[in-house]
């Protein structure tokens, strides 16, 4: 009996071995994902550059794309009526005409925007662009629940009705095929609406594009690049669009190389690949691992740079509950925390600063910190806490459970303890951090926060300081700031059109100083992101946009 059984097993094992071999071949024939192979220099035209993204891009469909990785690519594929200048630094924050003939004509007290669509435009598949495609693209964003959809539904007349199903189209957008004019009526005057029009989600797509996520086959657009070989949420290629040059869009470059983008979720490997010139660019949205930083600085300093980005980091203090409902407690924090200590913890990816409006955005002021005029003063802060009768007050400090943010919070808690509070730390996963502390029931006292711009306008940076952002379940004003001075100032400044922002730079700066005096938040710095390229890319001419980071259209191969 045993003999028979064993024979069966052996036969089964032999059959299994054959099945195993077949399974390997069959399974491996399926769709794959990323490879870390080096970029080929023999692509069409100027060759092909390669990029490793550390985070998956998500969908590239402009009606849903809201990750940094997807929007970087969509910027080059879906040009909107307006777009951003292809330039480094503050110049890259400038809104310029894209598919429109010029900047919008603003009438009706800032409530009506009129633009003219250029004639003769075609999508990358050759289909002519229609003037009604803009309205369709906006309707599609709303139907798909694009991540920034509230910027559309709270500004454009009739958009909210379209969202709720009360209307079959957006009444506030009127398209005139005879003149190619697009008129957009707003609910009320909203200065940053130029920035809203420059979102990649406002890029034109053909009317009739399915109102579902086109993740595997993103819609065609009008832009210097088009998508090819898209593998959902993993890899894609940006290929220069034939015929795009004939549209002559001022300020929109044609691109020099095609770009092959894949995902390498291990940042260490991704950085090593660029260091060894196996891949052409590192994902700037991800910090370079500290273990490799010294090697990069010593052996590849000519192709590595950290660049300040409009991304503010701060400790928020809930002004509605103890102990930070006491202004002295907040000022004590502002006096004691050492920004340079946090900079050290960041391995150089944080630039110390004290004002909420970050560098590169109108209204930013370097230095001018209201407190800490002579550096951190723990003794002064401790005395302030003691004189306020807050010594020993329990404080829970909330933060991310990922490095280096967890280290920032640990340091912050140690400072709170050193000035007399009784602080403990509570760390959560980044995915649930906002919804946890944004729930009033959590009664969160203080913690770590950051604000990455939706668009480069000071209005955007005052959203987390606005009373309108206070909400019982999805609050983003973590300090619960409800200050009449801020409300009055922003109500006036919000109306200033993007094109006239520089005329009110001083008012924004003054408002930032006022926020500092109230110590609603303790701003400790701004993100510095990495521009790290292989030696195949001309580093000097490669643009690092303050909005979309690596500007692939500026890349040129050195060999």
């Amino acid at each position, binding site marked *: 009996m045993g003999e028979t059984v064993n024979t069966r097993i052996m036969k089964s094992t032999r059959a299994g071995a054959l099945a195993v071999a077949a399974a390997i071949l069959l399974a491996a*024939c399926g769709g794959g994902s990323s490879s870390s192979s080096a970029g080929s220099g023999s692509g069409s035209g100027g060759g092909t550059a390669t990029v490793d993204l550390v985070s998956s891009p998500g969908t590239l469909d402009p009606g849903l794309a809201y990750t940094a990785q997807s929007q970087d690519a969509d910027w080059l594929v879906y040009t909107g009526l307006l777009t951003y200048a292809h330039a480094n630094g503050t110049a890259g924050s400038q809104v310029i005409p894209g598919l429109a003939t010029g900047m919008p004509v603003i009438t009706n007290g800032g409530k009506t925007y009129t633009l003219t669509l250029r004639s003769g435009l075609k999508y990358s598949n050759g289909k002519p662009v229609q003037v009604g495609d803009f309205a369709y693209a906006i309707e599609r964003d709303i139907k798909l629940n694009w991540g920034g959809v509230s910027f559309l539904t709270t500004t454009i007349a009739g958009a909210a009705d379209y969202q709720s199903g009360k209307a079959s189209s957006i009444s506030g957008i009127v398209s005139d095929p005879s003149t190619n004019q697009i008129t957009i009526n707003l609910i009320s005057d909203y200065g940053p609406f130029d920035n809203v029009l420059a979102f990649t989600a406002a890029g034109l797509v053909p009317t009739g594009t399915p109102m579902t996520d086109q993740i595997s086959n993103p819609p065609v657009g009008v832009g210097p690049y088009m998508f090819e070989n898209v593998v959902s949420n993993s890899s894609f290629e940006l290929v220069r669009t034939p015929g795009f040059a004939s549209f002559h869009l001022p300020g929109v470059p044609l691109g020099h190389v095609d770009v092959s983008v894949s995902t390498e979720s291990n940042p260490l490997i991704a950085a090593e690949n660029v260091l060894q010139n196996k891949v052409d660019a590192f994902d700037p949205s991800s910090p370079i691992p500290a273990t490799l930083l010294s090697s990069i600085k010593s052996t590849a300093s000519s192709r590595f740079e950290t660049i300040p980005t409009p991304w503010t980091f701060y400790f928020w203090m809930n002004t509605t509950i103890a102990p930070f409902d006491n202004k002295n407690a907040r000022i004590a924090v502002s006096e004691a925390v050492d920004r340079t200590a946090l900079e050290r913890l960041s391995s150089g990816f944080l630039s110390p600063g004290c004002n909420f409006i970050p560098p590169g955005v109108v209204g930013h002021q370097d230095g001018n910190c209201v407190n800490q005029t002579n550096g951190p003063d723990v003794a002064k802060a401790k005395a302030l806490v003691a004189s306020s009768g807050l010594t020993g007050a329990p404080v829970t400090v909330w933060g991310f459970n990922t490095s280096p943010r967890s280290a920032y919070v640990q340091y912050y808690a140690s400072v709170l303890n050193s000035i007399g509070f009784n602080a403990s730390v509570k760390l959560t996963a980044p995915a649930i951090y906002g919804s946890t502390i944004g729930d009033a029931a959590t009664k969160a006292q203080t913690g770590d926060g950051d604000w990455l711009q939706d668009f480069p306008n000071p209005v955007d940076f005052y959203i987390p300081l606005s009373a309108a952002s206070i909400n019982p379940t*999805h609050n983003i004003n973590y300090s619960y700031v409800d200050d009449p001075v801020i409300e009055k100032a922003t109500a006036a400044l919000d109306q200033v059109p993007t094109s006239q922002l520089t005329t009110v730079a001083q008012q924004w700066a003054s408002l930032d100083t006022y926020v500092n005096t109230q110590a609603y938040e303790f701003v400790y710095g701004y993100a510095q992101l990495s521009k790290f390229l292989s030696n195949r890319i001309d580093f000097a001419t490669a643009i690092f946009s303050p909005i979309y980071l690596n500007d692939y259209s500026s890349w040129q191969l050195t060999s």
Partner: protein
Amino acid sequence: MARYIARRLVSSLVVLFLVSVFTFLIFQVIPNGSPALRIAGRGASPATLAAVVKEWGFNQPLYVQYADMMEKIFTGSVVSYSGNINVLGQLRAGLPATVSLAVGASVIWLSGAIVIGVISSRRIGGTVDRLMGVLASVSISVPVYVIGAVALYFLAYKVSIFPNGGYVPISQSFFGWLDHMILPWLCLSVGFIGLYSRVLRSSIIETEGEDFVRTAKAKGLTKRRILVHHVLRTSMIPIISLWGLDFAGVIGGGAILIETLFNLQGVGQYAAESIGLLDIPPIMVIVMYGTFFVVLLTTAVDILHAFAEPRVRLQV
């Protein structure tokens, strides 16, 4: 036997149902934030939030949400909360890499374990046996992510013998596929080889004391024939059972660390990313998919055992 198989299949369905219910409930109980907030985006207006809640059915009772999710899973329309991406599509995309990893590694660990286990059992207490024992202990003890990280650093980054992670489909390049898979295969196999070789060694030693082996010796059969045809066949039964479970575990996304470390973009890596985002739909699908494979292979192994060992049938 038919009744036995039927019972196993029914119990498998019960296990799948219970696992799906418990997984769903666990992610309702633990603080995982409101998925509606994540979908609606930062600073969503109340109207947008309400639209998301209604569209996704988050205002429905739990049992309705569970039923809705199961329906979406079985109709293939389930999408992730983060990114709104079709989960089954992602799973299908990751399966080739995971199957490649599991099949290749399991062949290596099974072959390696048999060779080492047999050699150790031939030299019980000798230097080779002791050395193999130490190596087995080390390979079991060292975490797979340490082995992987060290191998990647030295063999891929420093010496550049192997590619620095990534996956190439065999349809794109056979040698590229092989080149990218060798290091993950070896790293994943090391621990299993250590464990399996020790189990096999013990099993061989135990089997050699059985009456039928003594009889074979008395009949004058050669040592080689006794080992291969009598001892090894019997000793392999626990190894095959173990292999079934481990293989199913790896196929079911169990090689999370190796896949993530080597950026294979397989099911395990997708699971790791989804867990990091506390994204329930992919986690549900991957857990159910992993459970399915474990149940399937366990059942297959049990049925094999039932054929091989009549007492198994009688006990059920």
